[in-house]
C-alpha cells in the first residue's frame, strides 16, 4: 500500500518538476539494490573486523580478491542467463571439465599454454552452445537441460582426468594467471588509466547529451560518481600495493565485468537479452531472433565458466576430481541474486556478479579467519542467500502493487 501511495505522490510531483522526480526515480529504481549490497558489505566487514583484526588487513583483502576471482567470472556468465529468466546449473561442472581439458593438453600433450587455455574456453563455449540450442530448439526447460549437463560434464571431467584423478599444472604461463602481482608503479598506472577512462566516458556522454538538448540535472551527479569511483580505485590500489601488489587475477575479473557490463547495457545484443527476459513474445514480434539470443547467452555462460575454471586451476596449480564441484555452482548463482539481479529475468547488471562474489567471499573468508566449521559457513551463506532472495521478492511485490511488473 505504501508503495502505491508513494507512486501517486511521485506522479503528482512529476507535473511540476520532471527532472528532479526523474533523478530520484532513477536512483531508487536503478541503484538502490547496489546501495543495499554495499551497505551489507560494510556491515559484514564491521562484524568480522570486530572479532578478528586481520580481516581488513591488506594481506587478507588481497587474498579475498584472489578467492573470489573464479566465482566472480562464472557469475558474469550467470548474470546473462538470469537476465533471460533462465538458469544454468552446469557452470560448475563445465568449469571443471574445461580446466581439465586445459591441464591434459598442457601437461600430457605439451601444448602451448595459450592454445590450451583457448581450447578450454572453446570447450566451455561449445557446451554452452549445445545446451542453449537444445533448450531453445526443443523448448525443454533450461533447468533440466543444464541439470543433465551438470551430471554429464562431471562424468566427462572424471573421464578426462583418467585414473590418477588429478593433474598438477607446471606451465608458468598458466599458473601465472592467478599468481602474478604487479609492482606498485604498474598498479598506479592501472589506477590512472581506469580513472582517466571513466572520466572520459562520463564527459563524452554528457557532452553528447547536452548537444542533443537532452541534458537533465546538470553534471553534478556525474561529478559525484567520478569522485566516488576515483576514491575507490585509489584506495583499492593503495591497499593492494601495501601487500603484494595488484594481482593480475583482479585485473582479469575487472576486465570481464566491465566488458560484459558494456555488452549488456550498451550494445544491441545486450538490449535484446533484456527484452527477451522481460517479454519474449514482444521481443519476437519486434523482430528479435529470440532463439539466437538464447543460444548466444548460454554460450557466454559456458565460456565464462571455462574462464573461471582456468583461473581456479591456475590458483590451485592443479585440476582434480573436485574441480568445479562442491558449492561453486550454487555460490556462482547466489552471488548475482544476492546483489540484486532478479531470478525472474529482465532486471540486473553484470556488476552484481562482482558485488555478489564480494559478499559471499567476505563471509566465507571471515569465517575461515574465525576458524568456523564448514557446517556453520554453509548455514550462514544459505541464510544470507535466503535473505537476499526474500528482499528481491518483496521488492518485486512492491513493484507490482505500484503497477510496475
Amino acid at each position, binding site marked *: 500500500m505504501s508503495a502505491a501511495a508513494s507512486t501517486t505522490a511521485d506522479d503528482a510531483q512529476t507535473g511540476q518538476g520532471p527532472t528532479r522526480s526523474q533523478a530520484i526515480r532513477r536512483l531508487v529504481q536503478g541503484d538502490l539494490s547496489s546501495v543495499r549490497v554495499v551497505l551489507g558489505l560494510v556491515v559484514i566487514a564491521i562484524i568480522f573486523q570486530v572479532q578478528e583484526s586481520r580481516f581488513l588487513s591488506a594481506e587478507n583483502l588481497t587474498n579475498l580478491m584472489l578467492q573470489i576471482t573464479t566465482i566472480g567470472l562464472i557469475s558474469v556468465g550467470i548474470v546473462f542467463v538470469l537476465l533471460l529468466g533462465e538458469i544454468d546449473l552446469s557452470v560448475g561442472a563445465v568449469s571443471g571439465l574445461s580446466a581439465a581439458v586445459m591441464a591434459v593438453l598442457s601437461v600430457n600433450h605439451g601444448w602451448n599454454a595459450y592454445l590450451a587455455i583457448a581450447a578450454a574456453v572453446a570447450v566451455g563455449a561449445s557446451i554452452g552452445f549445445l545446451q542453449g540450442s537444445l533448450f531453445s530448439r526443443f523448448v525443454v526447460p533450461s533447468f533440466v537441460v543444464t541439470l543433465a549437463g551438470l551430471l554429464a560434464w562431471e562424468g566427462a571431467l572424471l573421464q578426462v582426468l583418467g585414473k590418477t584423478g588429478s593433474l598438477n599444472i607446471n606451465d608458468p604461463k598458466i599458473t601465472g594467471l592467478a599468481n602474478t602481482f604487479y609492482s606498485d608503479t604498474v598498479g598506479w598506472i592501472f589506477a590512472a588509466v581506469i580513472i582517466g577512462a571513466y572520466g572520459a566516458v562520463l564527459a563524452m556522454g554528457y557532452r553528447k547529451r547536452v548537444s542533443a538538448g537532452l541534458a537533465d540535472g546538470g553534471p553534478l551527479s556525474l561529478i559525484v560518481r567520478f569522485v566516488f569511483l576515483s576514491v575507490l580505485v585509489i584506495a583499492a590500489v593503495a591497499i593492494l600495493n601495501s601487500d603484494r601488489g595488484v594481482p593480475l587475477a583482479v585485473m582479469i575479473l575487472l576486465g570481464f565485468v566491465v566488458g560484459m557490463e558494456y555488452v549488456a547495457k550498451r550494445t544491441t545484443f545486450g538490449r535484446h537479452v*533484456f527484452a527477451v527476459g522481460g517479454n519474449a513474445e514482444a*521481443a519476437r514480434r519486434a523482430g*528479435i531472433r529470440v532463439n539466437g539470443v538464447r543460444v548466444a547467452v548460454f554460450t557466454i555462460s559456458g565460456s565464462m565458466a571455462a574462464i573461471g575454471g582456468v583461473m581456479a586451476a591456475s590458483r590451485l596449480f592443479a585440476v582434480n576430481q573436485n574441480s568445479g564441484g562442491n558449492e561453486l555452482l550454487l555460490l556462482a548463482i547466489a552471488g548475482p541474486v544476492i546483489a540484486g539481479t532478479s531470478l525472474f529475468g*529482465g532486471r540486473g547488471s553484470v556488476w552484481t556478479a562482482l558485488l555478489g562474489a564480494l559478499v559471499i567471499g567476505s563471509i566465507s573468508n571471515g569465517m575461515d579467519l574465525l576458524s568456523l566449521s564448514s557446517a556453520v559457513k554453509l548455514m550462514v551463506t544459505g541464510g544470507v542467500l535466503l535473505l537476499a532472495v526474500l528482499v528481491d521478492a518483496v521488492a518485486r511485490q512492491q513493484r507490482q502493487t505500484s503497477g510496475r511488473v
Partner: protein
Amino acid sequence: MTNGTPLLELEGVSKRFGPVQALDRVDFTVSAGEVVGLVGDNGAGKSTLVKAIAGINPADDGTIRFEGREVRINKPQDATELGIATVYQDLALCDNLDVVNNLFLGREERAAGIGQATRQLDEVKMEHETADLLSNLAVTIPSLRSEVGTLSGGQRQQVAVARSLLGDPKVVMLDEPTAALGVPQTKQVLELIRRLRERNLGVVVISHNLADVFAICDRVFVLRLGKAAGEFKAEDTTEEHVIGAITGLAENRENNEADREKSERKPEEEGA
C-alpha cells in the same frame, strides 16, 4: 477526406480454420486519412480479418490490393514492408524496458564510429527521436526513461501506437485500443487516433465500444459470422442501426433467407 483509390482494398477474402469459416468473401477498404471502425460480436471475424491483413494468419482466398497494386501478404514482414502496422491488444511491450527502448525495440539506432564493431546503441539519438515523435503526437509521458511497466494503461497504449509509427506506415490497425481504459485515458487514446488521421494515415480500429467508434470513426464496418453485415457512414447512422447489423436483427427483419440459414448454424446465439 477520401480521394481516389483506397490505400488498402480487400476483395472476397476468405479464411477457414478446419470446419469453421472464419471469414467468408469479405470486401473491405481503408483510405488515407480515414478511420474505419471494425465492429462485430465475439467470433464475428474482426481479429481474423486484422490478422489476415497483418500476415499473421494469411487469407486462404481473395485478393488484397495496396495503393491499387495487387499484393500478397503471407507473413508479418510482408505487411510491415508494405507499410501496414498493427497494435495488438496485449501491446507487446517489455515492461522492464523504458519508453525509448520499447519504441526502438528490434530496430535500435546504432552508434557510429568505433562502437559499430560491437553494435553499440546510440541512446542519445533514440531518446531524441522518441521525444520528437511523442511531442508531434502530443503524447505526454512523465519521463522517457521510466520503465513502461510504471506507466498507466492509457500511456502504455499510446507508447504502443507511437511505436507502430516508427516504421512510417501508411495503415495502422488497432485492436481494442480502449478496452480496459478509464474515461480520461480513453479520451487520450481517441485523441491520438484523431492525430493519426490528421497525418493522413488509414486507420482501422477494432472496438466493442460503439460510443468510442462513433466518436472517432468516419465509417463503420460490421462483421457478422465471418461475413460483411453492413457498412455505415458514421454521420449518417445511429448506434441502433449498427447494433442491428451486429446482432443480425436488421437482416432478420428483412427476412433475408440466405442469412437466416447462416444464423441457424449458431442457434444458441439467437436464443440468447
